[in-house]
């Protein structure tokens, strides 16, 4: 097994090109009882890597992604992006933008009043690409994600997979080096999901992006990632960093693949159980 247990909280991680989280804590304080969501999260995502984050529902994955995207601010701990401290207000109202980072949501986040082309243009508007080159750049991008024929369609006229490709094209349009994806394929049917996994691998290799990928799907994570972080039940902390040492394209029937799958599945079952127990321990209402 090519896994290593993460070192203790006090260990220092040297900032490098990519994301580096050091001892990040996050608490929601707006409810009656403050909810500790992230506890002492330290992780490292190198430029060019495909990194997945797996954890039981409600363990703080989305919160972590918002922190990486500069939308939320940790209560303590530091996040570095390319060696620079990422800072922003907690509500994100005065957040300095980090246009190096593109976010892709499970529910797409497309603007319904814009066409596919319009949504991609929305992503390119602040990219710094000169205005007169944007039109061609958008067409090129649309053809790369296979949506050229649908350029003038509106989001409600698209299938789920097309919506998600539009959303990815929009993030690419901004020239972001980092793509943060929050369960991007979980609303898609099985067939579309397989196609999108292949599509994403292509995009990742072709554009040499860094991808942080949140998923519930163990197989998907092993199929796509260089490295998987396993988070504990809430408050989320990194339990393990699993490096996937398999050549691409990967085969789900492979013996070693199966080993990874068994290992991660049993971890996930344990943590899901833990989060159930915790929920039952707190009387409802």
């Amino acid at each position, binding site marked *: 097994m090519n896994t290593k247990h993460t070192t203790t909280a006090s260990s220092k991680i040297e900032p490098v090109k990519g994301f580096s989280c050091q001892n990040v804590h996050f608490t929601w304080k707006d409810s009656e009882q403050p909810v500790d969501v992230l506890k002492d999260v330290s992780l490292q995502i190198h430029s060019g890597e495909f990194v997945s984050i797996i954890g039981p529902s409600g363990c703080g994955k989305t919160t972590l992604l*918002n922190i990486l*995207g*500069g*939308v939320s601010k940790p209560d303590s701990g530091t996040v570095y992006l390319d060696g620079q401290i990422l800072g922003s207000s907690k509500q*994100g*109202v*005065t*957040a300095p*933008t*980090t*246009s190096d*980072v*593109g*976010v892709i*949501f*499970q*529910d*797409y*986040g*497309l*603007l*319904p*009043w814009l066409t596919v082309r319009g949504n991609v243009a*929305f*992503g390119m*508007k*602040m*990219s710094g690409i000169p205005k007169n080159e944007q039109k061609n750049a958008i067409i090129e991008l649309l053809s790369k994600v296979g949506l050229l024929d649908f350029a003038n369609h*509106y*989001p*409600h006229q*698209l*299938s*789920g997979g097309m*919506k998600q490709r539009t959303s990815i094209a*929009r*993030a690419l349009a*901004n020239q*972001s080096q980092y793509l*943060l994806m929050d369960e991007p394929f979980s*609303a898609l049917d099985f067939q579309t999901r397989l196609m999108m996994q292949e599509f994403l691998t292509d995009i990742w290799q072709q554009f040499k992006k860094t991808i942080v990928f949140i998923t519930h799907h163990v197989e998907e994570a092993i199929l796509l990632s260089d490295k998987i972080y396993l988070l504990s039940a809430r408050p989320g902390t990194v339990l393990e960093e699993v490096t996937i040492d398999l050549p691409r394209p990967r085969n789900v029937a492979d013996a070693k693949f199966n080993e990874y799958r068994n290992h991660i599945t049993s971890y996930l079952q344990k943590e899901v159980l833990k989060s159930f127990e915790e929920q039952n321990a707190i009387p409802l209402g």
Partner: protein
Amino acid sequence: MKANKDTIISFVCGLTSIIVLWAIWELTTALGWQYARVLPPPSQFLADFADSGFKIGLGSQAASVPESVASSFFRVFMGLSIGFVAAITFGVLVSMNIWVKRFVLPIVELLAPIAPIAWIPIALVLFGIGNQTAIFIVFMGVFFILTIVTVKLISTVPQHLINVARTLGYKNYQIWLYVIIPYILPGVFTMLRINFIAAWMAVLAAEMTGLRDGLGAIVMTGRNLFNSDLILLGMCLIGISGFIIDVILRFIQNKFFWWDTNQGTSAHK
């Protein structure tokens, strides 16, 4: 194609009932119904109307009918447009700061239930007899309620859409301009259409009481001259004009403010 067929059937049915109603009306008059004098049928009031050279009133005070229609339309559209733009602008400004919202919104909520008609006396004092008065009344009829709707809808803009724009490098004012305002436009416009009827009635009432032109004035001139042809003509024109304005508003909605914010942003198509 099916929707098209439905539209045609509905249209034909609607037209048929209007024609039948008209026929009954003409028939009762022809048969000597005693109220025909106060309810002259279209054949009569339209003929009279043609005889008078499409003018209403006496001598130099006579106004042409197309002018009356045009001035009512102008007043309503000016009032609605200014109200729409002002309410969105004001609603956005109020929403930008929680304290401004807390202090200002109660006042708006207090003013909103005042019927547009109730503004007529004040408008007449403020602006005298003229277009401004009518526009002011329509404006008051929609401004407060649209401001409330704007503020309410702004609070429903999904956080993730705002986050998308923010991570793409949009500044706060750009997020308002490119995400929040477009998001709320269809909802505010729907509310404008709902409140149009009240504003329309207020203009007519103003034209009947204070102003001396417009569609409402036609009815009032008819009353003053004991001319039921004129009253009926005015009523018909009011009905048709109101209907046409509603069609225009619906067209604007379908053409410019059509998007359903529950679609496209959501996983469930």
